[in-house]
């Protein structure tokens, strides 16, 4: 996929664990893990909003666009 999730980078920058973020965002750690690993098909605005608020960042810090190698 052309959109890369850089959640692990932001978590490292904020020195936060995935479980703590899951608690703050209000979704399960499993779902957050799906998002982190790039297996997610879509992300809700409400989830993105909650993640950005918890990590004190912008959506662009988590979502990165790269060109597809075709």
């Amino acid at each position, binding site marked *: 996929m052309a959109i890369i999730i850089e959640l692990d980078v932001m978590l490292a920058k904020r020195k936060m664990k995935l479980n703590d973020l899951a608690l703050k965002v209000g*979704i399960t750690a499993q*779902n*957050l893990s*799906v*998002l982190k690993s790039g*297996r*997610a*098909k*879509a*992300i*809700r605005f409400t*989830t993105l909003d909650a993640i950005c608020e918890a990590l004190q960042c912008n959506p662009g810090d988590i979502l990165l666009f790269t060109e597809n190698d075709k």
Partner: protein
Amino acid sequence: MNKIKTISKYIRSLLILITVLHLFVYASILLFTDTSNTASQLSASYNVFSSFIEVSFKDSWQGFAQALSQEGFNTIIILGIAESLPYLFIYFFIFKLFGLYQQGIIFTYKNSFYIKCIGTSLLGWIGLSLFYPIIVTLVIRFTGQSKTLPMMINIGSTEIKYLIISLIIYAFAWIMKEAINLKSEQELVI
């Protein structure tokens, strides 16, 4: 969920009973009926548990059964076994499908696969009813047992009815597969 499991259990038991009855009736006809000659003996009927179970070739195979009978062949052995095979496959796949329901597996690719298999068995039945008489005729002719047995191919209302039913079953299986795809995609929306 418990209701589904209980109903599935009953349906599976019923399927076993039907299969055993089916095999028992064919075995009884083979063992105890004089099927040696004449077209009038093509239909062997038995009263089992107040129901009327019979082995007859009234539709597409009737003409071929009469021709075989006139040549002195046992139609019950040649056509009866071939006719019951697709039924046994259909019973088997329904049995497997309800086995999944009994385990609480309701909405998976495996369920869709078994529904598709039921449709395929019906299609197989159509193929069998179209080509089996030709194959039997060719075998009999090549082995030299008869030189006058006619080559017959029949497409009747039964074949068309089963074709429509099998296509509808295929459509159900495909829709179910697509729904499972949608469901798994929905599960990946965070």
